[in-house]
């Protein structure tokens, strides 16, 4: 085993991890503000992936361009989901919220199965087949561009929360529900906005993910679990934590595939999750509670 091989795998892990990170960022933002764990997160991810596949297959729309209409569509979808279904549940106990989203996830997975069948679908872009050579390193173009788009998406979200008035209002709702209500913020509308933004993250991540893996309906639950692992390891509710957690999980999965066996790679992630939950429940990058 050469050092260059390990480096190549680690690099591929970092790039894939950034896309994972953007997906997890959506989950983290939703939990951080709305305090609802989106158990249908991975299922939404697969819907976005199928969206990109369909746009490419019917109109030849490049996934890099499909990002924009998909993000808008998912924003509206997420807004409607929160405003219509989840808002009435925010005062209900956790298990009730869980059941609601499990039902939504069940409908999503099997809806996709009805429409697309169980076979894997993919998007092949010829211009991405050639790798970039950088000394001993080989960089896969698809992974590189996907990671760049993921970083841009995450950066835009950071900037929105940091600088815009709406972003500040959303952070106020997250910090103090009652206080935000007292100063006259329409908290439920901001919750819906947040869910919309989280969904838009998923849309972008999904469009990029089809460049890296084939999509099948059953990927949904696996991505939900992956997103949980990432946000818990990174710190539930922390935005930088989600991205860093994504990279960490991406690299550890890539290297576990090399050193142990590819089929055991998620065992490393779940082992990491258990350790983090027990010894640092606020996450590796989260604030101490």
């Amino acid at each position: 085993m050469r050092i260059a091989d390990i480096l190549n795998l680690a690099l591929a892990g970092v790039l894939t991890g950034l896309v994972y990170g953007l997906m997890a960022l959506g989950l983290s933002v939703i939990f951080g503000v709305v305090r609802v764990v989106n158990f249908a997160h991975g299922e939404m991810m697969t819907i976005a992936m199928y969206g990109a596949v369909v746009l490419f297959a019917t109109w030849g729309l490049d996934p890099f361009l499909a990002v924009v209409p998909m993000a808008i569509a998912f924003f509206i979808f997420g807004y409607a989901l929160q405003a219509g279904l989840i808002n009435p549940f925010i005062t209900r106990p956790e298990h009730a919220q869980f059941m609601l989203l499990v039902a939504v996830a069940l409908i999503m997975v099997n809806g996709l199965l009805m429409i697309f069948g169980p076979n894997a679908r993919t998007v092949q872009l010829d211009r991405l087949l050639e790798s970039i050579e950088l000394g001993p390193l080989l960089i896969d173009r698809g992974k590189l561009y996907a990671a760049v788009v993921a970083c841009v998406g995450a950066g835009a979200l950071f900037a929105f929360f940091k600088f815009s008035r709406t972003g500040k209002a959303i952070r106020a709702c997250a910090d103090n529900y009652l206080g935000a209500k007292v100063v006259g913020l329409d908290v439920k509308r901001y919750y819906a906005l947040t869910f919309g933004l989280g969904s838009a993250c998923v849309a972008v991540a999904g469009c990029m993910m089809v460049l890296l893996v084939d999509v099948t309906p059953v990927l949904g639950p696996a991505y939900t679990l992956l997103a949980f692992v990432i946000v818990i390891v990174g710190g539930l509710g922390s935005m930088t934590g989600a991205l860093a957690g994504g990279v960490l999980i991406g690299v550890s999965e890539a290297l576990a595939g090399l050193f142990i066996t590819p089929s055991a790679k998620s065992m490393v992630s779940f082992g990491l999750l258990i350790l983090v939950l027990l010894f640092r429940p606020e996450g590796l990058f989260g604030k101490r509670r």
Partner: protein
Amino acid sequence: MSGLFALLLALPYVANSYVLSVATLILYFALTGQAWNVMMGFAGQLSLGHSLYVGVGAYTAAALFFHFGIGPWVGLWLAILLCVALGATIGLLAFRVGISGVYFALLTIAFAEFTRIGFDHFNWVGASGGLFIKVAQREHVDLLNLRGTPVMFYYVMLCLAAGAFGVCSWLFRSRAGYYWQAIRENEEAAQALGINTFRWKMLAVVISAAMTAVAGVFFAFYYNSLFPEQIFHISRSIEIILGPIIGGLGTLFGPILGAALLAVLADAITEGLTLLRLEIPGVKQVFYGLCLLVVVIFLPHGIWPTIARKLRL
């Protein structure tokens, strides 16, 4: 109550083999639902990883039978012991650090998934290829080795489910039951009243794990084949908790009613779709999901409390 039990006792004499298999499945989910309900419904600790105990219980008894010819009634005790140890480990780790709510639920998922992938590579029990118990002649009833007819399995399952109901109704009105409900409603207040919440939560987890292990042993000998991908999968855990939540969380009849309604619903959907010639894969689950959605939205406390109020029970 006794009327229902008599009806269930007489069922094999009137029902055909299909109805009997559905009834066995309902009783199985009544058992696992009761077990899960002890932890969540009574003590308020949300577990989303109960497939862990089903799987470990099933694999323990099946492997002992497969490798050493040790019968299920002996294997059962080792299965219970292992699951109690597992539950105690998870509880000890989580409750000592003060993990609760969503974090606890995710920890239980993580343990189940970790074990699933572990068993995928555990060659002694067949790894991902599965573990198969020899299927004996179905006409010959061998209760000692749990090899026999569907009617025998039905009666065994009926006894187990009835036993679980008995245990739960006793627990519900015992000292532990009241402590659990106090912890469920307000853990800090319970602690302030001098309840050792750690100890009672541990007891709930351990009892729940032991009861689920029993269900797992039955599962292994009823289906004769075990695959880590299936038995430890998160959708198995969700199946377990649907019954009690739909039926009525924290009630004694909820898990039974929920299991029965869900089985009947799944069946009705299959029949309806066959009639309409809509047999695309996935349609059934979509309808199932829609029905769940309706129940969760309109009956927040489950079906049994609503019926009980109507009947003034």
